[in-house]
């Protein structure tokens, strides 16, 4: 199985991705995660302005069969929510790494990025099928 794992993204062990543009972090679930979940049918996301913490749940995605928590890759404030995803959760399956993004966070400190995985490490993780 080949997964789309862009080199310039960060990854969590819980299969979220983080794309960093200065202090703004865009967050989604990985190609591997969406493939394992199957069709996403429901998404629950925080409100703009809400605080999120690194490794803490910020929402859920549900497939037909399963409920999965979403874990924030960084600590900060939610500044934007992808509302089109809430109406059309299938977009997460169609394009998990771009159009299927979930939230944008203004992060408190760049130092937390050191706790995340680089693409090479994440490839190893999903290669083991974890």
């Amino acid at each position, binding site marked *: 199985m080949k997964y789309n794992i862009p080199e310039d993204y960060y990854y969590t062990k819980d299969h979220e991705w983080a794309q960093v543009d200065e202090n703004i972090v865009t967050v989604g679930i990985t190609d591997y995660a969406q493939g394992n979940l199957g069709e996403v049918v429901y998404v629950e996301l925080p409100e703009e302005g809400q605080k999120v913490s690194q490794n803490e749940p910020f929402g859920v995605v549900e497939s037909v069969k399963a*409920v999965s928590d979403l874990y924030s890759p960084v600590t900060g404030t939610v500044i934007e929510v992808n509302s089109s995803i809430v109406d059309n959760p299938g977009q997460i399956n169609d394009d998990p790494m771009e159009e299927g993004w979930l939230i944008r966070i203004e992060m408190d400190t760049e130092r937390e990025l050191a706790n995340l995985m680089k693409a090479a490490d994440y490839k190893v993780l999903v290669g083991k099928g974890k």
Partner: protein
Amino acid sequence: MYVKQLLRRCNEILSPKGQVMKRTALYEEHIKANARMVDFAGWEMPVQYTSLMDEHKNVRKHVGLFDVSHMGEVFVRGEKALETLQYLTTNDVSVLNEGQAQYSLLPNHEGGLVDDIIVYCIKKNAEYLVCVNASNADKDFAWMQKHNKGAHIENESGIWSQIAIQGPAAIDLAAKVLGDEVRSIAGFHFKFINYKGSKVIVAATGYTGEKGFEVFVKNDFVAVLWQDLIAKGKNENVMPIGLGARDTLRTEMKYSLYGNEIDDTTNPIEAGLGWVVKLTKGDFIGKEPMQKMKEQGVQRKLVGFKMLDKGIPRHGYKLFSLNNEPIGVVTSGTMSPSLDEPIGIGYLRESVSSIGSQFYVEIRNRMVKAEVVKTPFLMRS
């Protein structure tokens, strides 16, 4: 006996975690079809081949094949076969003639359920096949032996496989592969059919709400039959279907799943299964407590419901009245692929269980409004 144990043994493998996992005789077919395999009741089974949604919709629109070889087959034979089954089960086995089947229950002494089953009459008064759930097969067999009234009871699960053929095109496909004879099999009837020199049991039963069959076939012939059905089913748009879609299909029909809707502690009356409890047939296990339940009425009732606000109900979520009293629990819930909306099954306090009643489902500490609806959620012919 030794041969049977050996056969069983060959189907078992060690999982990466070290526990023994059983494989059906169709395991290789699932791997070839790229199925995702999961542990189900100790069996390594396909949960999904392509997409749960596509598989589900294919069964509703065309036809699907299910490997249900993990189900157990227990044979009850001999002069005391009928007497034993009458005592062991809740339905009236004496009404069954050769070639007829009935849905039934294995009750315990408290009126709870050891399992839900289908009883097939192979020879009246002399030979019956009891099809049991995979998760309960060993427990059921031990229970049946313990309460045997003198029949020969044998667990033949190790030599039988089972394929379910379900969907609007199921009869056409089965006729192509097994012969036109299958067209004359009415609902809850079955026939022995000769397939490539092997006797198979073709039963017009299922777990999807669609037309179709469940075919009992010996392990040696099941892969050939499966391949034959796939090859000849191109025009019918046949697809192999995983356990994921099997569950959403049965949920849309509000069919009970052992472990969710029913278990050792639920009584059949509250589960809506009173229609298979025949109190007039003579003595059977659990008769007294069931009689009491029927006379006194039940505290809670199994209902189907839909959400009035956003959220998907899931197994184990709690139910609350509109003034926040705890009044029940969700037994099964999913996004319905056919209806494209969330559906749920659950136990509700009897006094608030009528159709149209509103209540809350607690979803992640949020109270989400729901309403009792008519079931099945989906009408099928």
